[in-house]
Structures are given as C-alpha cells and as structure tokens.
C-alpha cells in the first residue's frame, strides 16, 4: 500500500515547513483584513496551513501555492464570518487588531494610518485593494482567485479606490499607491 508521508510533501521545491514560513505573513495579512479579532485571525491562519498540509492539489508553481493559500484564507475567514454569533460578539475593535499586528495608530505627525482607513472599507473593497496594490496581482488573476467576473472586480476596485481617496483627504494618489 502506498502511504503518503505528509512531512515529505513537496510544494514546488519547498518543504511544508519552508512553505509555512515563506507564506506566513501573506496569510496573516489576508486574515487580518477579513477577521474582526485576533482569535479569529489565528483560527483562520491555522486552518489554512492545516489544509495546505492535507491538500492533494498538484501545485504547478510557487505562485500557484501562494494564490491557493490566499483563496483558502479568504474562504476560511468567510466561514468564520458567517457564523451568527460571530456577527454579534465583537471581541476587539479593528484598531486593537492593527496594534496587535504591528500597526500603531497614527504616525509621528499624528496623521491617520492608511491601513486603518483601508480596514474601514467594506470587505469586498478591502481584499481587492490589498491584492491589487500590495500583492500586485493583475485584475484577471484576482478575478480568478476570488472567482468573480473580471468586470465586477474592476468596478469593485474602482469603487474601493474612490472611497479610499475620499477618506484620505490629506494624501495624494501617488503617496498612497505609486
């Protein structure tokens, strides 16, 4: 009988441990964007990597591994989010969450954190703005990851950018995105 040894699984040249280390921050960022408290972030983070450990997906490239992890992270967070009691029990505010994960409210000149403002956007805009500007995915790639129509994605991106710009009175477009 051929028994698979999960420890020896190859993720396009990476061992499981190396894959966790390499993509750890990416998964954390997705979970921070989509979860309301530290406990949920950790739950989602763990579920994502446990699923990677057990996955039978044949990864074609490291980009494929990363995109798969982002996709699983988004759905893990949605799973937690949909729970009725989660919607009614808020354990900590987004600001507290940002402080826990390394973003201190306000910069030296006391201006608001851009990330804080990103976190105040509706969920669908948060994730597309993150994937487009930070992860630098193309719109067709984000559409593939989120399994939504590319034109829907583009309108979400445009709308998210518009809301963001309106909230960021003090910043120019270049300072934020370019």
């Amino acid at each position, binding site marked *: 009988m051929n028994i698979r040894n999960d420890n020896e699984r190859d993720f396009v040249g990476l061992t499981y441990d190396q894959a966790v280390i390499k993509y750890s921050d990416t998964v954390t960022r997705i979970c921070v964007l989509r979860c309301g408290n530290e406990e949920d972030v950790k739950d989602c983070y763990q579920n994502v990597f446990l699923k990677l450990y057990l996955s039978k997906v044949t990864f074609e490239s490291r980009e494929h591994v990363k995109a798969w992890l982002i996709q699983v992270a988004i759905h893990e967070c949605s799973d*937690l989010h949909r729970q009725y009691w989660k919607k009614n029990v808020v354990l900590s505010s987004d600001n507290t969450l940002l402080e826990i994960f390394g*973003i201190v409210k306000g910069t030296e000149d006391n201006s608001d954190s851009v990330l804080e403002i990103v976190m105040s956007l509706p969920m669908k805009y948060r994730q597309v703005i993150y994937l487009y500007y930070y992860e630098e995915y193309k719109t067709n790639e984000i559409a593939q990851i989120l399994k939504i129509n590319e034109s829907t994605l583009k309108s979400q991106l445009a709308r998210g950018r518009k809301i963001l710009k309106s909230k960021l009175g003090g910043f120019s477009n270049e300072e934020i995105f370019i």
Partner: protein
Amino acid sequence: MKKFLYEFDNVKTPEGWAEEIIIKAENMTSSEKRKLAIFNKKKISLKLVVIIAALFVLSSTSIFAAYKLNAKYKNENTAQSLNHFDTGVDADGNAYTYDGGQKIDQTLAVDNLDVTCAKMSADSHSAYIQFSVSTKDGSSLVENSDTKVSIAARQKFENINVKIDGVEILPRAVDSYYHIQRVDDASQPDKAELELYIETEKIDLTGKSISVSLENYQDEWYEYQDIGFRYSSIAELAMQGTLASEDEFLPSDKIKYSFDAGMRLLNAGTKKIYFSDKYPEAYIDNMGFAPRDLSDKDKCFYITIVPGSEENTKALQKLVFQNMTTGMPNTQKLMSQKSDGQKWVMSEETLPDGRIEIALDVSADDMYNPGGRGNIDTTMENISNYTLIYNKSYEVETKNIRYTGKWAFDFNVNANKMDTEISKDVDSKVTETKTNLHTITVNHVDLTSLQLKINATILNMDTWEFESFPVAGEISSPYIIMKDGTRISAGIKVEGGYQKGEKTVAYGWMLPSLVDTTKVEAIEWYGVRIYLQ
C-alpha cells in the same frame, strides 16, 4: 516607500504561530485530519456551549439570551412584510416616525402566549391594526434546530374573524378585505409583530366598533436531514476541481429533450467528487458558474450529480442548497420532460443521462438580495455560506398549532383619533416623463395616513392616443412633502389607470409608511409641487 505598502509590510505573523502550526500539522491524528473539513463548525459549537453555560451562570434571567445563542441558525424573517408603523426613511435618507393613530393597548394571555393589540391607524374605509405576540416564559416562538427551521413569515393565526358593529365581514369579498402578516425581522425569538389590514368599501369605519378574534398560533417549518456533507461549505466543494467554463453550459431549449426554462444544461464532466458520507457512491461530475439563460447576465452556481444507484437517485432529487446562516433552502432544479408521443408529458427530476442538475441563485436569497429586486451574481463569497442537505419537508407534516386558544379584542374607532383626511381640489399641470408627451392636469388629491389618490385629466390628446399613455406601473411615484421638509415616497404600489373614451385618470398608492396628515404641506409629482394646505 509608499505609505500603504509600508504599513502592510508591518503586518507580520506574531512570533511562534508558524512554529506552532508546523508542530500541530505534524502531530495531527488521523481523526483530526478527517475532522478538518468540519473544523470550524465543531470548534464554534464548543465555543457556543461555553458561552451558553456562562450566560446561565451569570444571569438568573438568562433564558432569553440563551435562546438567541442556542439557535443553530440566525432567527430571521426572510420574507418580512412591510411594517407600516415602523420608522421610515425619506428620499434624502432622513428617518421619520409616525406618531399618530389610536392607542388600544389590550393584552390577553392564553396558553403561554400574550397577545397585545397595540395600535390602530384608520381612515374612513381602511385600517392597519398592530399586534404583538410574546411567550410568557421567554421560550422561543420558532423552532430552530439541526433538523427544523421555522419559516417566520408563515407564522400566523390559524383563524381570524373580523366584525364591524357586530356584523362579520369577509376576508376576500367584493366590498371587504382583510389579511394579517408578520412584519418583524424575527430577531427576537420569543416575540413577533403582526399587522392586520382591513378594508371596507361600503362601511364607514368612523365611530364603529371593531371585534377581532385571533385563534390558534400556527408555526410552519422546513425539515431537513443531514447527508454527511464532506465539505465545510459549497465554496470548499467548488475548490476541489477546476470549474466548468461557460462554454460547457448549453441553453436548455437547444437540446433534444424539452427542459424547464430558466436554467442551462451543464455538460457531463470528468470529475469524481464524492461529497456525502450517507450516499458514498454518489459523486459530482461537473460544476461551475453560469447565467440562467441567454438573456441573463447574472450567474448561478451549478452542480451535476451522478447518483450511483437507482435508490440514490430518488433520495438525491431531494437535495437542496441551504443557507447556513438562515437555514433557508435555495435550489433550482433542471427538469426534463418526455412525451409518450400521445398526450402525456412526463416531468423527470433527472437529466436524460441520469444525472441530477441543481443550481444555486442568491438572487432569491433575502440575505444577499434584500427585497429581491432584480438579479445579482452568485459568487464564491456567497456559496461559502451554503451547504448541501436533504429536504424532508415534502415527506412529513411541516406545520402545527404551537399555541392553542382564542384571543378576542373589542374596541371602537375613535372619531377624534382618526387621522385627518385631506381632500382638495387643485389645478396643477405636470408632464409625465415616461414618454414626455402627455401633460396631465391634477384636479383632485385625497390623502390619508394610509393612502394617496390623485384624479387628473389628460390634455391635448384624443382618446385614441390613450394607447400610448403609460400603464399604472410606469407612472412615477409622487412624494409627500412634510412641513419640516421631509420628502416621503408614496411607494411603488400603484393602482388605477384610465378609461377609454374619457380623458380622466385616477391613481392610488398605499403608503409604505404611515404619515401624519396634519404635518403634510404638499405632494410632489413629476417635479411639480402641489400644495395641500
């Protein structure tokens, strides 16, 4: 560096998390691995138990809170009717509240159920009467368990009887009408609000006595059976293979067998996704997103199932997608029709090749498409909140009397408390914008707290031209302008029209929220203000 990027760079995995998950993954037992698909569900259940236990300890009157949390599904009225007494929102987004009407405040208690007749708003021939019901002991009005989910919108009294001055009126007659509807969102499991609407064409309600008898509070529910679905959601199922491209969907009217309109036929696929512990031979061979039909742009999520045996076929025809928050089913099934060459047309719940095709369309889900206006795309985000379950509702009785008894209320329509009716002759010209051709002279406006009626004349038009005049549904809704500037829409429920051979038209709107007519200044129709005071 870019401010935005710089800040995201600072979001790091807390120390120890990566190491912890590596150790956890390596030490997972085989049973933990099996359970991973339902990992979240199990853990949340455990947390719920802890929270419920804590609530019981912390509060001696914790029954209500516990009922809320103990429910598997969120208590929600997914087909909520309009609450006319509720706070409304005007055209500019400002809230307004109706504080007129006649207080009744009678409460009767029978069989663990308190029923209160709270308030009435009446004009001469129609009335809304507000009722609230609540359990005496705080227990839940709805059943909300693993296998049963109450349909809040269908909770009602089994029998209703209405008398005006001792004479019974009929609920659906030429000159009388009444019905009762549940109007709250069902977020409080032990309470419900209902609204009784009465219309009496020939009887002027002013000063009359009204008797309302409500008998037996009835519940109706969906009944389900677990199929041992192997994934935490439909989204996770969808991630088990490549999704079909739109080319793999055929318009259902283009194929050999006749199919029910409204869905496409998904080609047989090569996948074998075994999805159910209860039906281990059954598998999903293809799945993907596609619109319903050629004229539609908005997508549904389709799956086709190979049942694996005849016995399974029968059972799997009862599979439905279920919203895991509300517990409500949401499924369309592609039905094929076969003719025996004579006159009989047989409907089959399977495709000609034996597969079962079902689709999930969140346009029909009030949680994602409140009010059900227009269609929307079904997305991965949506389907992460759905599962597959067996719908037993058509095999068992799914309604019963939850509280037995009769709650009978008597009160008079106080003429002094009836809302002032505005009835005013006017002479204002407006131009309807549907065709932009017709000038209308508004001759008369009747406004009560419940409804608005307009009588008008069409100018510069021969009677034959009425064919081109907009039908009632195309006529724009007027606004009611309050003295404080609030602009309240008269709503979309328009009735009336024109009569051929005459140049007069009459339209009426039942207002979505009641208005205090003493505070009304004007109505506005097609941009023209018509002053009423």
